[in-house]
């Protein structure tokens, strides 16, 4: 479901494909509801080992992240700091991961590539960036940690299932049309990089 709250566009889980169709790359949105941290080894287990994810993420959100958690006793936990990790590491698994799990919103850092863009287009999901390194801003949006699964993976890689409120700002980097903010930006970056290499090279001919 989508709600406009104090001028903010807020996605509320469960999210449908229809909720995402008017959301485009470069848009800023926020998330309410179920968000589960999920990164390298969890993706590998689902895709390579065929293991079912022990937390329901269908129509919900995952976050590529490894948080700092403080145990509160009695199997309760506090989210101290949480921020995104490099999403590109999950690129090789993400298409199959989305197909298997039905996840609707993927939050991480930096861009992802063709496989993820294909998943976004085919299965109706989006990839968003939460500005990285802002782990306290993100942690205070976590109202409660509901579950912790696959704890054998250690603190960073455990699946921490959270209830979040106005989690963001989330900048949409791949939309349901498969448009890719970073890949479009990169065309300009690479062109200007080549120009700069040429310009600088002309001025550093120190070996003569």
């Amino acid at each position, binding site marked *: 479901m989508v709600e406009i709250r104090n001028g903010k566009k807020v996605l509320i889980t469960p999210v449908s494909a229809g909720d995402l169709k008017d959301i485009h790359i470069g848009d800023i949105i926020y998330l309410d509801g179920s968000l589960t941290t999920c990164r390298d080894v969890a993706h590998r287990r689902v895709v390579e080992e065929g293991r079912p994810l022990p937390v329901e993420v269908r129509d919900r959100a995952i976050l590529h992240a490894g948080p700092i958690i403080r145990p509160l006793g009695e199997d309760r936990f506090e989210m101290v*700091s949480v921020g995104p990790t490099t999403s590109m590491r999950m690129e090789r698994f993400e298409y199959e991961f989305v197909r298997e799990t039905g996840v609707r919103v993927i939050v991480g850092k930096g861009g992802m590539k063709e496989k993820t863009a294909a998943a976004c287009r085919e299965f109706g999901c989006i990839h968003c960036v939460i500005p990285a390194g802002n782990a306290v801003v993100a942690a205070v949006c976590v109202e409660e940690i509901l579950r912790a699964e696959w704890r054998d993976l*250690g*603190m960073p890689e455990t699946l921490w299932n959270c209830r979040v409120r106005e989690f963001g700002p989330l900048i949409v980097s791949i939309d349901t049309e498969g448009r890719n903010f970073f890949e479009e930006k990169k065309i300009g970056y690479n062109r200007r990089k080549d*120009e700069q290499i040429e310009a*600088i090279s002309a001025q550093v001919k120190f070996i003569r």
Partner: protein
Amino acid sequence: MASDAMVQKMTDMMARFIGYTGIILPDDVTAKLKELRAKEDNPLAKVIYDTMFRNQALAEEMRRPSCQDTGAIQFWVRCGTGFPLINDLAGLLRQAVLRATSDTPLRHNAVETFEEYNTGTNTGKDLPTIWWEIVPNRDDCEIYTYMAGGGCTLPGAAMVLMPGEGYEGVTKFVLDRMTSYGLNACPPLLVGVGVATSVETAALLSKKALLWPIGSRNPNERAAKMEKLLEDGINAIGIGPQGMGGRYSVLGVHIENAARHPSAIGVAVNVGCWSHRRGHIIFDRELNCTITTHSGCVL
């Protein structure tokens, strides 16, 4: 021979200092981020900078690590041969990391290689990393601390160029890395470049280059010129904060250099993210300390 009380005292101070550097950015990094924020005009870049400053204020207020990735902790130690705790230093720095990890808290970032399990203590085989410089005829000890997250560790690269590739080759090596890996490394970046003979000499220099104050200039005129050219060049690419576009992409470019073999140019690049959590603390023989990076830090 240092007394147990002194070892304990220095361990406590280092544990607190490490924790502090995970919460509060160095003065020069904060100042540079303020400068860059004021110069950006596109709305997305502004939202990102605003989030950063809100985050740092919350981290300070709530005493929490400002970024969840508190790094696999590294120390660059420049220790006088007469420093009374020289024999205890490696052990006490490890203890300090253990303490800071539970007290701050820091993330458990030590995975034993090959066995592939997280130790759960933030320490492991040869981790924390300690690089030693032994300084004759001094009795003080300077310690640079560095928390590099995984994101800004990934772009690191070193290679040996043929001399025919020259400094033009160095330029290409550095800039290629910025557009391939730099986007995901949390720009604006601090870029450290090492120029020497082999991969490890260049690589260590590129790390050392990240420890100097932002905007430091290499004393060699040509190297300093190249720092400025690379800085302007990477900014001109337009990567901006978080790689999402903007007028400024770097906090700075620092080059460290050493003489090279005539047949080889070793080059390495290492980057620090915007949340460049380095610390610099100097202990005298009585363990009085001077902190150059964080003016608000009282241990």
